[in-house]
C-alpha cells in the first residue's frame, strides 16, 4: 500500500520556445500550445511601438552618457517582451514593472519626463500610479511580484476583472520574493501574469551561474500553475501568450508564468563594462534574433508593411527622440521643501521642526 495522493494534474512546459515568426521572418513550425498568431494589423502596431521603443532606449542611453541622467538601464534588444506583454493589457489591468521597463511605461502612455524623472534624479517616481495603472518601477529585485499578487488578490475579493502583470528577470528569479509571489498567487489563484524576461545576465552574472534548471518556466509546475517558455524576441508569441494568460486570470483560472527568452544588448546600465563578462561574438550571435528585423521582414512578406510605412514609423521615432532630448534638456523644477511633504499622511511636529532647519538654510543661501 502506498500513500494515497493525487498522481495527475502536473504538466511541464514544452522545451521548444513558442515562436510564430522565426529569426528569418518566416512562420515557424513550432508547436504553440493552442495560441494563435495575432492579426497583421495588431502586429503592425506592435512593430511600430517596438521601433519607437528602440529609438527611445538609444536616445536615453545617449543622453545618459552625456550626463543628462544619473543612470539608465536600457532594455534594447528586449523590445518584443516589453511591448508585446504591455500591449496585451486591458486598460483596467495594472502593470508592476522593474527599473528596466521604461519601454513598458512608454508603451502604456506615461509621458517621457514622468518616466525619466527617477533616472534624472528629480524624484523616485515621476508619475501617478493610479493615472496609468502602473506601480512605481521597483528597484529592489522581485519585490514588485508580491505587490502584483496582492493587488490581484484584492481585485478578486472586490469582484473586479482587473488582472495584474509583473516583469521580473532571470536574476530576480533567484530572489525569495519571486518564489513567495509565485506561490501566493497560485495558492490564492490570483489573476496575475508573471513575465520573466530571461535576458541571460544579471548585471554580469550569466544564467548558468544563476540557475541549474533546464529552464526557468519549469518552476511553474512546482507552484501548481501553467508555465510557458516563449521566444521573447518574437513579439507575436509574447503578445499571444500574455493575452491568453490574462484571459485565464480574468476567468478565475489563476496565474501564469511566462519565460520570455531574450538578450540584453546593452550593458546593465551606463556604469558597467560588459567586455569584462561577455565577448563581442556573443552579442553578434544574438543580433540575428533581433525582434524588429524579423517582424519587418514578415510584415513586408504579408504586404502589411512597405517602404512608405517603414519610413513613416522611422520618422515618428525621430520625432519621439527629439521630444526626449527636449524633455531631458529642460531642467525639472524641484522644491527642497517637498522633502517633507509626502512622508506621512498625519503631520508630525518633529518633522515640521526639521523643515524649519531647512527653511533657515535655504534663506541663508538666498534660495527663493
Amino acid at each position, binding site marked *: 500500500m502506498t500513500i494515497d495522493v493525487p498522481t495527475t494534474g502536473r504538466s511541464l512546459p514544452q522545451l521548444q520556445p513558442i515562436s510564430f515568426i522565426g529569426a528569418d521572418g518566416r512562420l515557424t513550425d513550432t508547436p504553440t500550445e493552442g495560441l494563435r498568431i495575432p492579426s497583421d494589423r495588431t502586429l503592425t502596431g506592435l512593430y511600430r511601438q517596438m521601433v519607437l521603443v528602440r529609438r527611445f532606449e538609444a536616445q536615453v542611453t545617449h543622453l545618459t552618457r552625456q550626463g543628462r541622467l544619473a543612470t539608465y538601464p536600457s532594455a534594447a534588444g528586449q523590445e518584443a517582451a516589453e511591448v508585446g506583454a504591455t500591449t496585451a493589457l486591458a486598460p483596467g489591468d*495594472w502593470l*508592476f514593472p522593474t527599473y528596466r521597463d521604461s519601454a513598458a511605461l512608454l508603451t502604456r502612455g506615461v509621458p517621457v519626463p514622468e518616466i525619466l524623472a527617477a533616472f534624472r534624479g528629480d*524624484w*523616485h*517616481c515621476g508619475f*501617478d*500610479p*493610479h493615472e496609468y495603472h502602473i*506601480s*512605481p518601477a521597483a528597484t*529592489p529585485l522581485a*519585490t514588485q*511580484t*508580491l*505587490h*502584483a*499578487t*496582492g*493587488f*490581484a*488578490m*484584492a*481585485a*478578486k*475579493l*472586490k469582484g473586479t476583472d*482587473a488582472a*495584474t502583470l509583473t516583469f521580473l528577470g532571470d536574476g530576480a528569479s533567484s530572489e*525569495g*520574493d519571486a518564489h*513567495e*509571489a509565485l*506561490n*501566493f498567487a497560485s*495558492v*490564492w*489563484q490570483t489573476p496575475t501574469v508573471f513575465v520573466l524576461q530571461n535576458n541571460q545576465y544579471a548585471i554580469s552574472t550569466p544564467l548558468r551561474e544563476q540557475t541549474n534548471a533546464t529552464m526557468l518556466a519549469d518552476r511553474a509546475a512546482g507552484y501548481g500553475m501553467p508555465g510557458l517558455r516563449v521566444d521573447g524576441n518574437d513579439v507575436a508569441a509574447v503578445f499571444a501568450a500574455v493575452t491568453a494568460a490574462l484571459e485565464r486570470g480574468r476567468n478565475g483560472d489563476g496565474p501564469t508564468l511566462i519565460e520570455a527568452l531574450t538578450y540584453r544588448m546593452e550593458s546593465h546600465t551606463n556604469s558597467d563594462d560588459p567586455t569584462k563578462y561577455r565577448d563581442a561574438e556573443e552579442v553578434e550571435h544574438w543580433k540575428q534574433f533581433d525582434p524588429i528585423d524579423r517582424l519587418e521582414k514578415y510584415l513586408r512578406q504579408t504586404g502589411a508593411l512597405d517602404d512608405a510605412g517603414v519610413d513613416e514609423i522611422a520618422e515618428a521615432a525621430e520625432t519621439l527622440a527629439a521630444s526626449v532630448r527636449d524633455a531631458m534638456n529642460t531642467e525639472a523644477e524641484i522644491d527642497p521643501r*517637498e522633502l517633507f*511633504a*509626502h*512622508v*506621512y*499622511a*498625519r503631520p*508630525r*511636529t*518633529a*518633522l515640521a521642526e526639521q523643515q524649519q532647519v531647512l527653511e533657515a538654510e535655504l534663506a541663508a543661501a538666498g534660495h527663493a
Partner: protein
Amino acid sequence: MSVETGTDSTTDPTAVNDETATAASASNVGSAPSSVTMTKALNQALRDSLAADDTVLIFGEDVGRLGGVFRVTEGLRAEFGSNRVWDSPLAESGIIGTAIGMAMNGMRPVVEMQFDAYAYPAFEQIVSHVAKMRNRTKGKVSLPITIRIPYAGDIGGVEHHSDSSEAYWTSTPGLTVVTPSNPADAYSLLRESIASDDPVVFMEPKPRYWMKETLSLPVTTAAMDRAQVLREGTDVTLLAYGPTVRTALDSAEAGAEHGLSVEVIDLRTLSPFDDETVSASVRKTSRAAVIHEAAQFGGYGAEVAARLTERNFTHLSAPILRIAGFDVPYPSPKMEEYYLPTVERVLDALESWDWEL
C-alpha cells in the same frame, strides 16, 4: 469566491464553511464593565474594525482557523468569512508584499507577523516599500497597512521568540510605531492604527497579553501620538513602553518606599515621539531614565536620551539613563531573568545618580 461544502481537505484555502459562521459580532460593544485581557481587547478591536469597514482584511500565519498562536484573531474567520480573514502561506515577506498590493487596490490589510524575530524575512518589504511608498509617489499611493508584531520576552520562549525589534522600525522614516501597555490602550490604539492612512507597526507586548483590566468596550483612550503620564511624581521621570511600563510602575512603588517621588510615562507611540509631554515632565523632575527590553547599544533609549538632552539640557540635574537589556543576544528561558531590566536594576540605576547635585 466559492464556499466550502465539504469538511475535509479544501482546495480553496480562502473558503469557509457557512455553518461555522456565527453572528456573535459586537457582543461586547457598549457592554457593562468586565474583566478584559489585552488579547481580548485586541480581538475586539479587530472585530469592530472588520465590522466598521469592509476594506479591512486580516491574513497571516494561522490567524484563521486557529485564531493566531496567541488567539488574538480567534473567531474572526468564522464570523466574517474567509474572504475577510484567512490563513496565508508561511512566508512573511509574502504577507507584507501582498498586503502592499492589496492596499494599493483600496484595501486596509491588518497582517500578523507571528513572532518578532519572524518579521525579519519581511524587513525589505517593510523598510523599502511600506515605509517609502507614500513619499515615493508624492502622496498618490498611501499604504494603510497595520503590521501586528508580538514582541518582548519573559514568556519562557525558545530562541527567536522574545526579540524586541522596535529600533529597526523607529529608525525608518515613513513608519508609525505603536505599542500599548494595557488592554484599554490595546483596543483604542489598534482601532486608530487600522483607521490610519499611514502604515503602522503595531507591537504587542507578549508578556502583557494576559494582563486584565476592568473595561467596557469600545473604549477610546488618548490619541495615538500622545504619551501618557500614568503616575505623577516630582523627583524622577521613568519612561517606558509596552512590557516595561509594568516594571516602571512597580519601580515607582518601590521608590516611594525609599522616599522617591517617581513620575511614570507610558510612551505608547514610539514614532512619532511625544516631545511635548515627555519634555514637560523631564523639566519638572530634572531626572529621567528610559527602560526597555532591547539591548542598550543603539537602542530606542539612545534616541530618547539624546533628544531629551538636546531639548532640556539646562533643566537636567543628571545624565539621562538607559535601563535596558544587556548588549547580548536575547537569552534562553532559564537565563532571561538575568537579562531583563527588573525593578532592582531600575532602583540601582536611580541610586547611581548623585542626588546631592
